[in-house]
């Protein structure tokens, strides 16, 4: 177990470095001068000249690529992500304010999607081919196919504008307060719908695989109640692979937050990134992508460790 933990931890380091490298390459191998790309197109004359020189000095573009690369990595390791071109604010500070907002939204939607998805999947699997199963799987496919930005506006229209049950958009502070939670429900539902569909389909097939195994037949043959068979025997093993999916879906949510935060005017990392792209504020885009992907690698690491912990086949190795 300890060996496995150590191995996974050590393996995460080159992955993170690889991600940072890919971001670096994307920025530097892109067609055109990176400085041109960083300068707002509306800037002209001496202001432009000033900015070119400042960026060149700030990013060391006059240095050879490998030196730039090493500098980039060491700065990243010190969490120095540079400054925004537009506002001159340190990017890491901007991100620090927004990361909790994105995480809160992500966790809330993860809670919604896991609760809905896993329970639908379990019931579907135990009543395979029943009406419930068919309807649930139909609904799961709906969830996977619906464009989240459109779903967001439809929910906003129904619950926010027509029924006036919830604020249509905006941010109400931490989700642990009533106002905050009320603001977070619609975006979290929007963000969680796709994942709920994925969880339902995955849990169902994982559960069916387990239910067909011999030890389940043995448990039934012993005369155990179906409830005990399903919840004590089958579910434990069926949920182990779901843990891996949890890490992946958390990442999908980080990616999806870009759209959902734009729809609901949620002050998170995703909207920050899009604002950066639209303003051609490249250091901002780079910093946001770096942080989000590193977060995803860490989430997957966490999921792997949890997987190892609950799976005795790995735990006792």
């Amino acid at each position: 177990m300890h060996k496995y933990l150590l191995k996974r931890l050590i393996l995460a380091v080159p992955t993170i470095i690889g991600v940072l490298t890919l971001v670096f390459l994307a920025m530097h191998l892109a067609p055109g001068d990176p400085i041109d790309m960083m300068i707002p197109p509306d800037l002209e004359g001496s202001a432009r000249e000033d900015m070119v020189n400042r960026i060149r000095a700030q990013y060391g573009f006059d240095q050879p690529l490998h030196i730039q690369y090493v500098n980039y990595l060491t700065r990243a390791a010190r969490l120095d992500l540079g400054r925004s071109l537009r506002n001159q604010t340190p990017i890491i500070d901007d991100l620090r304010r927004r990361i909790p907002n994105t995480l809160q939204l992500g966790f809330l939607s993860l809670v919604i999607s896991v609760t809905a998805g896993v329970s639908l999947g379990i019931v579907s699997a135990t009543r395979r081919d029943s009406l419930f199963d068919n309807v649930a799987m139909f609904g799961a496919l709906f969830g996977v196919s619906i464009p989240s930005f459109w779903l967001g506006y439809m929910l906003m229209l129904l619950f926010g504008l027509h029924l006036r049950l919830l604020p249509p958009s905006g941010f109400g502070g931490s989700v642990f307060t009533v106002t905050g939670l009320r603001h977070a429900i619609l975006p979290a539902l929007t963000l969680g719908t796709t994942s709920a569909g994925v969880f339902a389909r995955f849990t169902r097939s994982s559960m069916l695989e387990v239910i067909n195994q011999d030890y389940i037949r043995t448990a039934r043959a012993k005369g155990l109640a179906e409830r005990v068979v399903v919840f004590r025997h089958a579910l434990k093993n069926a949920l182990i692979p779901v843990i891996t999916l949890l890490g992946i879906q958390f990442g999908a949510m980080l990616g999806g937050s870009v759209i959902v935060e734009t729809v609901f005017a949620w002050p998170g990392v995703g909207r920050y990134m899009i604002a950066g792209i639209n303003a051609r504020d490249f250091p901002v885009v780079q910093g946001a992508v770096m942080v989000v992907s590193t977060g995803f690698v860490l989430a997957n690491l966490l999921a792997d460790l949890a997987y190892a912990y609950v799976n005795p086949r790995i735990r006792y190795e």
Partner: protein
Amino acid sequence: MSDGLKTKPAPTVVALERDVRPAASVGRQLLLRLRRNRMAGIGLVFLTLMMLMAILAPHLTPYQPQQQRLLWRLQPPSRDHWMGTDELGRDIFTRVAYGGRVSLVIGVLGSSIGMLTGVTLGATAGYLGGRFDNLVMRVIDIMMSFPGVLLAILIVAVLGPGTHNLVVALSIWFTPTFARITRGCILALRDVEFAEAARAVGAGSARILFFHLLMNSLSPIIVYMTLSVATSILVAAGLGFLGLGVQPPTAEWGIMVSTGRQYLRDAPHVILFPGLAIFLTVLSINFIGDALRDALDPRLRV
């Protein structure tokens, strides 16, 4: 007695022979299994309708997708405008139909190019093994470390928005998954006997790889290809919505939702119909993909 012994087995053999019908071809079996799936049928019909609508767009509507009539802006659905008009008085049905051309072409292009590069990379890596395999798989691991659509967003952010760059971003984004699937299949097949037999009769590596191994790995690739067309349409619309994909004034479903959002309260039909078009198209492709998976790979049908 000896006669009896001789004749007795005969009827069984005859019976067996009578039972053995010529095995249905793989394609025929597939068709049979698909026909039993009602959802796939619905999906196929709807997708065909969508494609016809896109292809025949100029014949279905008297309007042009960019034709503005400011006096008729934000009209609700009526007999003249089946889906109403948008903020510039453009006919929404016309734009949805023309938008179908853009979305379907981008969906198919993005996933096909991704499939070609991914399958080539994965097959070569799996077949050659060793250092090349290691290198390819590490790069793919890293590409897959970008959560969700983030890699596609990063690529578009670097290359700049636009239809062309959107297709490039989608292709790169799909490559790792196709590569992983193909490599897995090739690895499982590499040392199988029919490949050995082909080598024994003097077939070259390329021939074995493409005609023998890859042909036997097609099922999962076809299934993922179908599903990836759906994803591709969804992601393209999402990037269009964010302003990173196809650029206005082109009629594209994602952009239509994006520009219509300001009128959500008073004219919800402006974003209702393009969104429905995305949703139903993606849903019908997913129906087909699911049915294909059930039909092609009975092992996965749990």
